[in-house]
């Protein structure tokens, strides 16, 4: 085995295992944040007895789930019933593979006791799989998650679960449209799909949240629907469907669904921060953009700081997801479809035309890809956001339930 192959295998294994472990711990922490955060927003304290600040509560719950009985509903499709939790769990973790989480490190060249000589040609990018298809991979695998939920609902032989699964499939397919169209705007500006290139582009022109504000808003709204979080958690809809698609699951098979939901939540947050908030970019400095060629304290510090910044951004969006969940009530199904097809879709199409025109004019004028480019696009976005928030959103969008029954006092 050549030193280069050994280096590649070692680095890949290290990244994959490390990221998986970090995500698993992250999921447990995020469930804790959700429970404590929800409690705090509701003037309660939340679970605070198991471990310091209640941090071990979810691990205790996990142990409990291991020892619970697995119930197989009569008439369930055995194979699919077993498979469905995995189908929703795996994509949530796979999606993270293409997201870069830090500045690249220098290459490796050293000798280890058992492995022998190991070489990894620099720069060592901090991403598990630097795929050339970039965010298309994420789009593909986020739609794979639909299968997990739909099959869970379908295979359980339960009307509630089936309704939840059907809702999930319709909802996620509808909102994938909004996600895809808002990503077209990102693609138009950045000109390429790998997330590393998108981060690099944002370092030159400014974050895409300023260059493509409307696309960001649409993406964020659609992300709620894609992760089945409130206000779009109709697949679960405790009030109507018992527990929706996972109504018939028990023990660890059940626990995998929330695990997958929170993993998808983290991945979506990381995705939003990568696409629209510069990924691991530290704002107001170009120091993080230099690529080190040799190992030094500065190179390690750069890696650690960019990791921390990326983590902060991701956690912020995780918190936004949680915050919105405990703020908004659930949408009605027709309102959900109305928003997806009649609001987000036309807005996205108009926005693509506007941005494409602006980019065409910018390229014709020969504006280089730096802050000036970003500033012009930002100026294009300002009136659009004003139009959206103070025009379209002003008492014209969401129809309330018509009052059919009038109660006479």
């Amino acid at each position, binding site marked *: 085995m050549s030193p280069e192959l050994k280096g590649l295998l070692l680095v890949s294994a290290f990244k994959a295992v490390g990221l998986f472990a970090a995500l698993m711990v992250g999921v447990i922490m995020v469930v804790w944040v959700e429970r404590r955060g929800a409690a705090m927003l509701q003037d*309660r304290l939340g679970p605070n007895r198991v471990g310091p600040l209640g941090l071990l509560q979810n691990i205790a719950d996990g142990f409990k789930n291991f020892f619970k009985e697995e119930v197989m509903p009569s008439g369930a499709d055995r194979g699919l019933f077993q498979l469905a939790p995995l189908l929703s769990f795996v994509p949530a973790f796979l999606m993270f593979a293409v997201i870069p989480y830090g500045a690249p490190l220098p290459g490796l060249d050293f000798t280890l006791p058992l492995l022998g000589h190991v070489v990894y040609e620099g720069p060592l990018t901090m991403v598990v799989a630097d795929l050339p298809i970039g965010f298309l991979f994420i789009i593909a695998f986020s739609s794979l998650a639909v299968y997990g939920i739909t099959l869970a609902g379908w295979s359980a032989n339960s009307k509630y679960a089936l309704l939840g699964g059907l809702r999930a499939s319709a909802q996620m397919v509808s909102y994938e449209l909004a996600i895809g169209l808002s990503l077209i705007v990102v693609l138009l500006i950045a000109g390429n799909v790998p997330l590393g290139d998108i981060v690099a582009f944002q370092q030159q022109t400014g974050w895409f949240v300023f260059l493509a504000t409307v696309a960001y808003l649409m993406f964020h709204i659609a992300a709620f629907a894609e992760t089945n979080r409130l206000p779009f958690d109709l697949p679960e809809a405790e009030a109507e469907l018992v527990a929706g698609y996972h109504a018939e699951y028990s023990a660890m098979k059940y626990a995998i669904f929330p695990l997958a939901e929170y993993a998808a939540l983290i991945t979506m947050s990381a995705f939003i921060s990568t696409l629209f908030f510069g990924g691991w970019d530290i704002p107001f400095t170009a120091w993080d953009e230099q690529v080190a060629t040799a190992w030094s304290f500065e190179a390690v510090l750069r890696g650690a700081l960019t990791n921390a910044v990326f983590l902060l951004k991701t956690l912020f969006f995780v918190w936004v997801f949680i915050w919105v969940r405990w703020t908004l009530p659930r949408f009605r199904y027709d309102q959900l479809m109305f928003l997806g097809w009649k609001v987000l879709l036309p807005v996205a199409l108009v926005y693509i035309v506007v941005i494409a025109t602006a980019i065409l004019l910018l390229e014709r004028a020969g504006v280089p890809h730096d802050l000036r480019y970003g500033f012009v696009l930002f100026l294009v976005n300002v009136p659009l956001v004003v139009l959206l928030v103070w025009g379209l*959103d002003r008492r014209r969008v969401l129809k309330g*339930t018509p009052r059919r029954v009038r109660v006479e006092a």
Partner: protein
Amino acid sequence: MIGVKVMRRPDREVSYLRATLKGMAVTFSHFFRRKATMQYPEQTSQEGFWTLSPRWRGTHRMLTDEQGRAKCVACGLCPQICPANCIKLVPGEDEEGHRYPLIYEIDEFRCVFCGYCQEVCPEEAIHVGVHYENSEYDRQRFVYDLERLCAQTHPVSSLWDPADPKGE
């Protein structure tokens, strides 16, 4: 007339984004508010924020006179009025003709905490208490005898006053 708060809901059209942001501001302001949770074993209702109503009807307490004797004169009104039939009273009489209870037991498991015994008592002897921590390891321990009823120290209930229904 019952005071019911009727929410005025918009029955026509409202907004998405701005309403959401407004709602998020409201929920976030709650993040820093004082929490309603009582961390029970460490904190109890004595500590200010969570106070029991003075009209709370908990386990009984027998008041005593200056010599430490129960005020009860064994008139028999409390077992008479008790709807749960949980008071056992055997009256006795001393040489001077003063009546006193030979046996006075209350089965707190049978008691429905209506407070009639306190209302009916002419000597203001038996009271229901402002108190809720009653755990025991044995069912027998829930039959409180006279000695135990006299030894209770918790505050007694003020009961509901028909002349002052809101307790003002």
